[in-house]
């Protein structure tokens, strides 16, 4: 083996990656990837296939215990798709996603633009604040937000009362649908901005400063500069991050489940929460599986857009 390798090295011009190591395909590479392929097959593909199968069966608690589920075709999908509650959940998920993603993108663009314009030390300070947020575990953040918005001792209510909003004295945020919805948006936006802002900042500093100077010489204002230089140059990057944020917000489960379990009422039930509720509380695993497959379908659309953006990004760079 060593001799064929060294001979290949001698023949090859120095340092031209990727190296054509061996002409003869051997079974070595396949042995090396075998564990990864096997794990993916058993732990990812099989559960996915199983989810499809369950969604095509009648699968409740009795079937779970006895293991004698029978196929019912698309009955579960028909039932889910004709249920007005499902469509209410879909609408809520879309609204939730739109509100979150728009806020995340606008705020992180502003933060990134700010970072570019700050002096070295202020920038370092703001960036370390952002990294701290990034490092905060979801569960820790969720717990802290419950404490911030606590009715009697929460610091948010105290501040609102001090600012003259008497109505917020002992206000119970988590008993009100829209209020809980707003807190979840605040939490998810707070957690998501650092990644988006730091990525956009990293992309912005790659834009050659001559472009900006030329624009400024032509007398362009800040907004003109952003609209005619920053955004067009980074279009692919903006697309990429937007797609990622859409995916992350649609499948956000932990924050919602821990804070409200989809409540009060159904006010914060989005698709992943709904799928879990149906399966866990109603023990209709079949319907839950159908809902989660429909969610996967929605995500695949977002994912395809993401891959297209990534492809474009690769072409640009």
């Amino acid at each position, binding site marked *: 083996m060593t001799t064929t390798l060294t001979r290949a090295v001698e023949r090859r011009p120095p340092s031209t990656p990727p190296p054509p190591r061996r002409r003869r395909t051997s079974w070595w*590479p396949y042995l090396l990837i075998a564990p990864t392929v096997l*794990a993916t097959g058993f732990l990812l593909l099989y559960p996915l296939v199983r989810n499809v199968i369950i969604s095509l069966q009648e699968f409740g608690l009795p079937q779970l215990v006895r293991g004698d589920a029978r196929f019912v075709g698309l009955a579960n999908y028909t039932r889910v798709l004709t249920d007005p509650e499902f469509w209410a959940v879909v609408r809520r998920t879309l609204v939730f996603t739109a509100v979150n993603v728009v806020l995340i993108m606008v705020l992180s663009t502003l933060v990134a633009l700010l970072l570019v314009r700050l002096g070295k030390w202020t920038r370092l300070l703001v960036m370390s604040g952002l990294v701290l947020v990034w490092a905060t575990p979801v*569960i820790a953040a969720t717990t802290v937000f419950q404490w911030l918005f606590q009715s009697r001792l929460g610091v948010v209510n105290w501040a609102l009362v001090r600012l003259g909003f008497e109505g917020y004295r002992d206000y119970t945020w988590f008993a009100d649908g829209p209020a809980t919805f707003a807190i979840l948006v605040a939490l998810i936006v*707070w957690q998501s901005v650092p990644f988006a802002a730091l990525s956009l900042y990293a992309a912005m500093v790659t834009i050659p400063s001559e472009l900006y100077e030329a624009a400024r010489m032509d007398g362009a204002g800040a907004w003109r500069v952003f609209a005619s230089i920053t955004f067009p140059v980074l279009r692919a990057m903006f697309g990429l991050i937007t797609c990622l944020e859409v995916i992350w917000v649609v499948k956000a489960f932990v924050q919602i489940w*821990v804070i409200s379990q989809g409540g009060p009422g159904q006010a914060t039930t989005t698709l992943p929460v709904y799928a879990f509720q149906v399966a866990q509380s109603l023990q209709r695993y079949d319907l839950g599986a159908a809902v989660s497959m429909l969610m996967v379908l929605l995500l695949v659309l977002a994912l395809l857009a993401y891959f297209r953006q990534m492809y474009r990004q690769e072409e640009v760079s």
Partner: protein
Amino acid sequence: MTGRVLRAVAAVVVFVVSVFPVYWMVLTAFKPTRDIQAATPTFLPLSLTFEHFGTAVSAQGFWSFWRNSILVAGGAVLLSLVVALLAAFAVARLRWKGRRGFILMVFVAQMTPWEALLIPIYVIARDTGMLDTLWMLTLVYFMITLPFTVVTLRGFLAAIPVDLEEAALVDGCSRAQAFRRVVFPLLAPGLLATSLFGFITAWNEFAFANVLIIKDQDDRTLPVWLSSFSNTFGTDWGATMAASTLFMLPVLLVFLVLQGRVTTGIVGGAVKG
């Protein structure tokens, strides 16, 4: 001039909004209970106490949840490191049929919406008698971190010049020796960074821990325990925040370690002339 002031104000606002929730968590954890329940909150650490940390640490099962979290996250990361290193080597250093297809598979696997697989994995765990075992959780976390580990390790490997390895081969090293003596030391920072990120992912995971560990409450992990803090601490917010702080501490340490370490792993200077 006004622009400067405006920017400074904006910077302060961004910094405060980012840091305040975390600051408030730590501050509450150190505040005496009477200060926490005071009508007007104090915003500076004037009087501090370790009382709440004591309550959190002595809570029923705290240490076993801590141990479970470490075991599950550590096991998953070790497993995915070994498996991913093999695959990353094949992808970064060897040419073979199906390589592109394999890379695509890994990329797609990385985007898996795991939240959609809660139900089938619960059913599978139940069917195979793996429900309520830490093994099942370890396997799931292994799979969650695997694609990401393959992708990053491949990146780190590709950054190590092939010439170094070839020089070792020319000097009479075997393939394995070349890897162990030349590539591995250069790869170590990358391995560290990757495994720490994987560790954080597994350490923070809640949804599967919540679904797969049901009957045996002693087998729970920290996130699940923390999410049900009101069962443990009632309205004792000081203890709840102390527990959150303790939970966040390892993650923060990992971030600090990564800051210094990853940059030292750059091999740029290794090949000269």
